[in-house]
């Protein structure tokens, strides 16, 4: 593999890893703070992608679509937390698994009723629809770079939100000791709503920004969900930092696995997971 090719694969794996991080961060944040395991997380990714396709058709602008789509996702997250999830914080994980599995069915059907079962494509915005030439016949699409940039910006924003702001302090306090936080007069219900909406929004944004490079199709959430689980398992559940490291690792192994050993490409990531579990059954960054 020459250098240009290597660079392309490296950028691809970075882009895939960062996208996975957006998804896994929401999943692990919701688990770490509310103790809820959410199988429907992949559905939010799917809904995001379909929203992007639908809104681009209406508004004719991907940026506007993402802004409006994010607002819708936050509202949806808030509504779900308020109506269903808050009643499941103290229930068994098994109940949460079933609840969210039921939601997968509901979301799939709602998607089918609203937008049908067709496969769609979203156009890359005109401004970003060009490539940076690397050699005579190799080039790298700018949109993917911008995607990675957006992911990095959001990850940075998330980090600052959680570690530097007052709200972040309350979120961490709530995760550490719910009763104590509540008795200090902090509205923990509000915090839960915010975190849940944030998680849903992250998944939906991931779906929206990924829609121009991946096709938009029914059931696209389930494979993503499983990759998220792998990331969370490798990183250590509840750890956002672990999710970042694991997502980048998974991105590398998956991308280079496909190039170097295509025979086992589908399984390479799971082998990585098995290897990590062998040495660290609780993941790399168990809190």
């Amino acid at each position, binding site marked *: 593999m020459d250098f240009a090719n290597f660079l392309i694969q490296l950028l691809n794996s970075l882009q895939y890893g960062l996208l996975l991080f957006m998804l896994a961060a929401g999943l692990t944040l919701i688990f770490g703070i509310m103790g809820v*395991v959410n199988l429907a997380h992949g559905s939010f990714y799917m809904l995001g992608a379909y929203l992007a396709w639908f809104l681009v058709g209406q508004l004719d602008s991907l940026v506007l679509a993402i802004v409006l789509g994010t607002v819708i996702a936050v509202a949806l997250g808030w509504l779900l937390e308020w109506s269903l999830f808050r009643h499941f914080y103290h*229930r068994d*994980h098994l109940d949460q698994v*079933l609840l969210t*599995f039921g*939601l997968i*069915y509901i979301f799939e059907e709602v998607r089918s009723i609203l937008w049908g079962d067709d496969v769609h494509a979203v156009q890359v915005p005109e401004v970003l629809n060009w490539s940076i030439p690397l050699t005579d016949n190799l080039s790298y699409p700018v949109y993917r770079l911008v995607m990675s940039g957006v992911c990095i910006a959001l990850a940075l924003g998330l980090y600052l939100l959680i570690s530097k702001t007052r709200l972040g302090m309350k979120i961490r306090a709530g995760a550490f000791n719910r009763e104590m936080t509540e008795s200090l007069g902090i509205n923990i219900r509000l915090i839960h709503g915010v975190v849940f909406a944030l998680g849903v929004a992250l998944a939906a944004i991931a779906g929206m920004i990924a829609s121009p490079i991946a096709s938009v199709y029914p059931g696209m959430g389930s494979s993503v969900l*499983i990759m998220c689980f792998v990331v969370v398992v490798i990183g250590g559940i509840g750890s956002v930092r672990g999710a970042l490291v694991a997502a980048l690792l998974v991105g590398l192994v998956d991308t280079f696995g496909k190039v170097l050993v295509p025979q086992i490409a589908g399984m390479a990531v*799971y082998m990585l997971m098995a290897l990590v579990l062998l040495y660290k059954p*609780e993941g790399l960054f168990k809190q």
Partner: protein
Amino acid sequence: MSSPKAQLEKLPRSIQAILVLGAIALAAFPLIPLTGGEFYLQMLSQMMILAIFAMSLDLLQGVSGLVSLGHAAYFGLAGYALAFLTPADTPISLWWALPASALGAGLAALIIGFFVVRTHGIYFIMVTMAFAQMVFFLFFDNKALGGSDGVYVNFRPDASVFGWAGIDLENKTTFYYFTLLLLVLVYAFLRRLLFSPFGRVLAGIRVNEHRMRAVGYGTFGYKLAAFTLAGALAGVAGFLWAAQTGYVNPELMGFHMSAHAIMMVILGGMGNFAGAIVGAFAFEYVMHFFKDLTKHWQLLMGTFIVLVVVFAPRGLLGLVERFSSKRGKA
């Protein structure tokens, strides 16, 4: 968070009565002349197969407190084993294909179990699911293993004994009774196991694993044994499924299949194997009912699942028990 509460270990009279009546009804069903009888025969066979599958999961989920979200992997693997063991031009003998398929599924469960059993709670759920997905993609992505299209089972296994062809699995009624027999056998075996020292240790692990370790039990070995056994029994169900439908595809090992098994166990009631049987029948019935009703059946199914979780966390048998114990007191 605490592990799920198992219930009704010693079955109350009312539930035993339901089981006996159910078994009689199932035994008598092929004798009833019914229009479209063959269709219903096939449907009931499938429900019984899924009941075996659900019971195998209940050994983990209800008895040992290990919620596996990847149990369908072993179900599917045994089905594939039958498909690949069967030669192109002649049926294979049931008497070694069934044990071989179940053992193969058990072996896979032993290997995967070695990794997953070391984890706990929510981790266990995620890791079992991830490993099952690995198996799923192994078959889905490989043309040599049938790919996404799946594989046909060329012939139903041959169940003749020393040339006597009394058990002909090509015959739908015979297959039905064969499945019923296995359902009863697996149920009796698991009930017996539940009250054996091995079963008591598993139940102890569910209640408090730390204490079991402190008392001196090597819980890892016990959990691994339970995981392997559950995998092998799921394999029995998968084998029957493949033999009946004559076709296997990756969906059999998929995420939905695993989640459905969990749902069946919950719906009926966990930890006593009777619930798994009732749950499998009820779940399949509801699904067929919704599918006949509307093409948007997923919406109804999803709502149904959500409602069950919200309102009947102890399952149908839990309701029966509550009802009958209330009457007993009055």
